[in-house]
């Protein structure tokens, strides 16, 4: 019944919007992350045209915009970025393109980003917010508000689309909680290539032990790697994880040294390419949760 209502509202919204707004061209949205592309498409529906500059499998920490990308930004009405300093090139990209687009750093608008310990003053924030389903729902609202500001006539359509997407994330949340409940608390250690799963860890009580820092760019040191070897042995951690867009060499050495299992590759910095089984947000999240639960619950 609930689903039926949501569907009915979706239809109503779309009709209402297109009737009032038939003459307006679709909103041109450029995104800098595969996850934001999906949010924009889900919320915007037919009233937006989404161009994703960072394609699946590309490392967003070291992304390098091409002239075609700069042209896309120049033509955009709205630019969506992950924010929290993930896109260090963002200001230069927008300024260089001469674009008048509104730039929305979605992560910067989230209420409770994770602060990194040891950072002085304002502090560095963890930019990988899409690994929290709650933050994903909040981000959907932030994008909806931005689209509504740009196309007030479509407000009803945008909110019903956003609610439908949030309902799907809500059911994903129920599923994920059930899966992760299968893991005893003592087994909730995530050893990964770089520090990308802080939000997942916060939501589900994991401890993250990353080989390199928040960016895939930072190089590990010997002391740190030795501490990880000790930790894996001491805590009897059953598995460690490599990531799709990070170099697997150090993780492989950890596996060789400790004999720990290598879990399925996690999608840390965005969605996977077509055919990877992680090409949508929900598929990506399911893949990660399944990979983690399966590898860490092994005897």
């Amino acid at each position: 019944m609930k689903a039926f209502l949501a569907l009915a509202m979706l239809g109503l919204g779309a009709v209402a919007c297109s009737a009032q707004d038939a003459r307006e061209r679709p909103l041109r949205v450029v995104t800098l992350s595969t996850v934001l592309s999906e949010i924009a498409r889900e919320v915007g529906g037919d009233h937006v045209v989404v161009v994703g500059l960072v394609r699946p499998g590309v490392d967003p920490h070291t992304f390098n915009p091409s002239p075609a990308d700069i042209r896309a930004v120049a033509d955009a009405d709205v630019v969506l970025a992950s924010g929290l300093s993930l896109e260090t090139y963002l200001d230069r990209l927008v300024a260089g393109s001469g674009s008048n687009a509104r730039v929305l750093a979605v992560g910067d608008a989230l209420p409770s980003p994770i602060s990194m310990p040891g950072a002085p003053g304002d502090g560095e924030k963890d930019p990988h917010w899409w690994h929290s389903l709650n933050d994903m729902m909040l981000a959907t609202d932030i994008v909806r508000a931005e689209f509504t500001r740009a196309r007030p006539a479509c407000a009803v359509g945008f909110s019903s689309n956003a609610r439908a997407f949030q309902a799907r994330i809500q059911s994903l949340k129920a599923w994920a909680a059930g899966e992760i409940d299968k893991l005893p608390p003592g087994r909730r250690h995530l050893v990964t290539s770089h520090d990308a799963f802080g939000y997942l860890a916060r939501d589900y009580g994991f401890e993250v032990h990353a080989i390199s820092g928040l960016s895939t760019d930072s190089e590990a040191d010997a002391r740190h790697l030795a501490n990880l070897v000790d930790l894996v042995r001491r805590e009897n951690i059953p598995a460690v994880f490599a990531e799709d867009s990070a170099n697997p060499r150090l993780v492989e050495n950890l596996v060789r040294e400790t004999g720990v299992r290598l879990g399925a590759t996690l999608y840390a910095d965005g969605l996977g390419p077509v055919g990877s089984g992680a090409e949508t947000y929900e598929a990506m999240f399911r893949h990660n949760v399944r990979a983690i639960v399966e590898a860490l619950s092994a005897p």
Partner: protein
Amino acid sequence: MSLHDLLIAPFSYEFMRRGLLSAMLLGVSGGLLGCVLVLRRLALMGDALSHSLLPGVAVAWLLFGTSTSALFFGGLVAGLLTALGSALLSRLTRVKEDAAFGSLFIVFFGLGVALISKLPTRINLADFLFGNVLGVGASDLRLAGAVSAGTVSLFAIFYRSILLETFDPVFHRATGGRGGLVHLGFLTLTVLNLVAAMQTMGIVLALGLFLLPAVSAYLWCDRFISMLLLSIAFAIAGSVVGILVSFHAGLASGAAIVLCLGAVFLVSVLFSPRYGAFRALRLGSVRPPAG
């Protein structure tokens, strides 16, 4: 902290032993090759070479994906084309070798950047091109061992030719030496070592191991053989101390080794009794740049 904790305990980890071993193996061959590079004024070759590998790696990636050996051969081919190409150009045309090298490498680098912008996903190739000394695996170690052993044996076999070609190429040729061949062989060996070193240990450490021990040794020695041996000794000592510093101070390992080698260079260039800066200042004899 006991001496055992300081020096022995860090090497109870396999990744530390592997990393140190690969740095030492390629430090030995790099220390040898570096001496000839310094004496023949090809010191900047390594730097240029690291850029010229890009198109080879990009093509290998397009054809074979991320297989380590394919990327190695891709880089090797591109590096050889640059090094041997500039050696040939300098012999066939008016252009000198350093200018030929500078021109070729930047063309190759441009080609690499162009190829990468056409790759289906703009994956970070640098990640695959450059390794990390802590990530050295069994196959990397075999590669380092083979390259190092090959280099040392070729040096031993052709020692006389290399010596003559380095110090007096005109005399070498006049006495019937195959100077061109020795030079090309030497360049091939350098490319092979550099590509192996960059892929197993990363670009910073590879270039540091090739240059710093040799320049430092150059400041202490007058005889070629003692320069070779001191260069190897510096490379090995720097690797051991550097990886220990990385372990105890929590510094990136490649950079820590290079900084230790850099300290040796700094001390040498300041305090070398015969060729150091302080001696020159004390005697008031600032020499004109050797030409």
